[in-house]
């Protein structure tokens, strides 16, 4: 809402929240003329919103979305975590969690959103990626409000939970879910406080069974934050990107004490993990390889910057420090034993 501050009324356009923008403008009006104009705009918006069906106007702040389409997996997990699960009408192609999504229609994803399908579901809120400008424009023309879910750092996750909760009239639930995630993360951080911090290489992709095209976490993003929280220094923390290609030379030079590999293949077996760890024998001088500290994690949780980051944080702490921060969690999607496929550490 800050985009219109200091500007004349009406600049806000017809995006979601235009009504609230108009309100803000009225509050800051300095001259009577501007105040009158702003008030007129406000009335116009209000009238528009009261039109039959309300299909032309943007969503009023007071009206709570009841049919939500989310094609952002992390946002979908947030929706279920804050109690908006029953309102989710459809999800994207890559949603795997929670299990309820398996029953829902799929409407494409980042590159291939199925606009017709989305429109036919008559949603009153669509959660999209920021880069989906075409989709946002199309939905805007159809008068369907969109919510742009952005994520990057670990802090963005709980901020996003609260923001989405406020948008859905579930502020209290969102607050308690976000607070639970923050509490659980703080517990992990506390459990490793004061312990020596190993230098860790976090591998997020490579050619199977070979040390080629190794993609690692750089110094930006929730995975880097999780590594930091779980008590390790990211071996590629100086690279200001979410992911980067790590050359063999760079890995040899940076001498990681621990290597953690994330694989989101859910069909993998113990033998697969053994074979993947075996590939690192090509770099026998790396301390992590020399000391048998190459770990392979399988599971879908860590590719999704949602409430399940708690699971990832715990798995990291366990692998890095042997710490089990078994603090029982309360009620959120991070609760263990609620049908959540846990990360399977193979050490």
């Amino acid at each position, binding site marked *: 809402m800050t985009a219109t501050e200091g500007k004349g009324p009406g600049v806000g356009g017809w995006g979601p929240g235009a009504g609230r923008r108009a309100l803000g403008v009225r509050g800051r009006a300095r001259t009577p003329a501007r105040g009158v104009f702003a008030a007129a705009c406000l009335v116009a918006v209000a009238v528009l919103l009261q039109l039959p069906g309300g299909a032309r106007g943007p969503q009023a702040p007071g009206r709570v979305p009841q049919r939500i389409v989310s094609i952002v997996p992390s946002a979908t997990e947030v929706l279920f975590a804050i109690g908006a699960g029953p309102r989710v009408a459809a999800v994207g192609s*890559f949603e795997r969690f929670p299990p309820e999504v398996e029953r829902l229609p799929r409407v494409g*994803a*980042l*590159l*291939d959103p199925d606009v017709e399908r989305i429109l036919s579901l008559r949603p009153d809120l669509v959660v999209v990626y920021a880069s989906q400008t075409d989709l946002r424009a199309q939905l805007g023309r159809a008068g369907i409000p969109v919510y742009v879910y952005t994520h990057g750092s670990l802090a963005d996750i709980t901020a996003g939970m609260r923001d989405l909760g406020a948008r859905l009239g579930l502020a209290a639930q969102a607050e308690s879910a976000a607070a639970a995630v923050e509490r659980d993360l703080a517990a992990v951080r506390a459990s490793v406080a004061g312990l020596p911090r190993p230098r860790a290489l976090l591998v*997020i*992709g490579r*050619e*199977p*069974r*070979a*040390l*080629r*095209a190794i*993609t690692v976490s750089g110094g930006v993003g929730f995975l880097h934050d999780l590594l930091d929280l779980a008590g390790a220094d990211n071996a590629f923390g*100086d*690279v200001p*990107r979410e992911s*980067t*290609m790590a*050359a*063999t*030379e*760079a890995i*040899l*030079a940076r*001498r990681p004490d621990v290597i953690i590999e994330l694989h*989101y*293949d859910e069909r993998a077996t113990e033998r*697969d993990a053994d*074979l993947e760890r075996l*590939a690192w024998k*090509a*770099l*026998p*001088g790396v301390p992590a390889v*020399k000391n048998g500290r190459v770990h392979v994690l399988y599971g879908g949780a860590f*590719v999704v910057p949602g409430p399940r980051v708690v699971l990832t944080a715990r798995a990291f702490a366990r692998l890095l420090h042997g710490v089990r921060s078994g603090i029982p969690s309360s009620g959120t999607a991070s609760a263990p034993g609620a049908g959540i496929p846990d990360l399977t550490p193979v050490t």
Partner: protein
Amino acid sequence: MTDVRRRLAAAVAAFGALAAAAVLAAPLAGSTPIRLDRVFDRSVPFADNVDAQIFFIARLPRALAGALVGASLAAAGVVFQALLRNPLATPFTLGVSAGSALGAMLAITLRLHLSLWGVSAVTAASFAGAVCAVAIVYGMARARHSGFSTNVLLLAGVTLNAFFSALILFVQYVADSAEALRTVRWLMGNLDVAGYRPILAALPLCALSFAAFAWLPRALNLLSLDADAAASRGIDVLRAQRVAFFSASMATGAAVSLGGPIGFIGIIVPHLVRLIVGADHRVTLPASALFGAAFLVGADVAARTVMAPVELPVGIITALVGGPFFLWLLVRAR
């Protein structure tokens, strides 16, 4: 004849020295400063000697892989240009690289978790894809003619390229975003082989191709002019064409499965070498192979160092250097 021998000796000596210098110097450069005396210090165990590890595990295999891939692609380029009688032909014109890429894409997106003696499924699948493409193109070229039509070969190859490219896009489209990204990265080329096994796996195929190349130059000289003239000079045209096609395809397939479809080497290097040593394939072919090796090793050094610690894909370097250079060559020649 003696004149050719003298020119061949001079070219091989000059370009060979260049290639050898590149391979020897490349391991000295990189994102991490290392000291040569420590690299060869036997008193420190290898497992604790980071300098030696960087030299022998990271840099030397890379330089050797670059030399092998560069030599193969450049020589294959020369052979294809002569075989197709087309100066714009590259090792990738007949769909070998597209088939190779499709194989690699499938292995990446299907997450084929296999490996054989240190060679990953991606490498093996990309070579299999190259073999498929070669078989299809060859079948097409032989189907409607008793002989071996280079026109059909060219058209079939170009069409197959487009068809495979569409399949590649399709595979990328249905893949997870992380895998789509990995497939795109594969297409940019990567010589970081982290060991000698992938090189040793590609080496027999390249060696076989080079053995065939050694037999080819005289035939290529005549073929590049006119098939009928070649026949009248006592060349078994069909056999020469077949050997040229299969050996160049095999070299390309092996090179692409080792380093990815690194562009421009196969067209820039032959033209540059022809500019220097002339168009006689007896000299051009070996000189191109050696210069291709030096060129790609040099390009990989640039890829490793210009943005260190972040690496550029080597295919970007060859295209960035090769593209403008080739344009300059075009303008200058007229």
